[in-house]
């Protein structure tokens, strides 16, 4: 592929249908293609995303420990299922075993029972505001 070095000549062209790449225009510097030296200049000036700048002081190291997500979140699943962090991020969840499903059903039953006995209702924002303002617990009866 050839590459641009200096100011491109902007050519407005209908050579391609607009729906191929939703292009607004094609800017080609016909006289400035130089393989191996790739640099692009748009009509808005030199704006390409780049790391180049002045002359920074350079350091070389072997590695770097970053607080990235797969370090913060440890993957630990029952049954010694080997699932990586990438699997979880991409939505590749392992199916729960029958034993786990049974435990979940039991836990739901217990939770329902507790809710009925204690008459637990969701604490709404309006209720909280009223309690804070009036300094008393709302009568739920």
């Amino acid at each position, binding site marked *: *592929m050839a590459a641009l070095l200096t100011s491109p000549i902007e050519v407005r062209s209908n050579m391609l249908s607009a729906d191929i790449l939703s292009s607004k225009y094609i800017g080609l510097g016909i006289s400035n293609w130089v393989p191996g030296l*790739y640099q692009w200049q748009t009509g808005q000036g030199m704006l390409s995303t780049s790391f180049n700048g002045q002359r920074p*002081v350079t350091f070389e190291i*072997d*590695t770097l420990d970053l*607080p990235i997500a797969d370090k913060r979140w440890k993957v630990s699943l029952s049954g010694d299922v080997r699932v990586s962090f990438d699997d979880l991020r991409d939505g590749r969840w392992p199916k729960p075993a029958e034993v786990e499903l049974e435990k979940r059903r039991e836990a739901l039953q217990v939770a329902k029972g507790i809710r009925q006995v204690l008459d637990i209702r969701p604490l709404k924002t309006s209720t909280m505001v009223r309690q804070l303002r009036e300094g008393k617990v709302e009568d739920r009866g």
Partner: protein
Amino acid sequence: MILAQVIVELRHSQPLKLFRPYEELYRSITGKELPEKEIALPGFMLNVAEKKMRIVVEPGHTSVVLGDVPNTGYCVDNIMGLFRKITELVEMPLLKRLGIRSYWYQESRLDFTSLVSVCKEIFYKPTIFVEESVDIGASFTLKDGEYSINVHFGPMAESQLMTMFIFKPDKLPKVASYLDVDYYSLVNELNITDTILRQFVNAGLKSGVEQSEKLTNILLRKE
């Protein structure tokens, strides 16, 4: 296409204070601005060999280069991790530009000359220049709401493809279609936050994926 390299750049509207100690000292002692701008101190560049990563913190911009990229999630995690580390130590000034640039390639079954011919046929009308050319490339500027996307692509032989990457991949195809997607936004004194940066990086990588899929689909019909 294979994602080979990602560059994220935050361009500062004012030089980082870290690099202007004389100005700060003069102001704190005299209560006035320096009569002339001091030359800023040199920036900082860190190359991390194992991770094929480069971090550049300069007065005018803060950048991260990621080579050997396994997937887009890796990019988001590392970019966020790095910028979090940097902003723990350095107060990030207001920004004037956000940019994320992704570099892609796809091995071609064709030899270089044939791939050039295919690109001519797809992207150009036959003219004397097109017919005589031995190499070719194309550049487009697209829009995605407030963001602009500069897309460049074309055929490349291994030797030229190698020059596109800061960290040279171990193996590259003999002939490939190359794609460079620069997704950016000019902003007016933006105060960058974790949420804004994460959304921007995700949007830029998503756009890169979209452009690479478009190009692959177009080329596959002819290759």
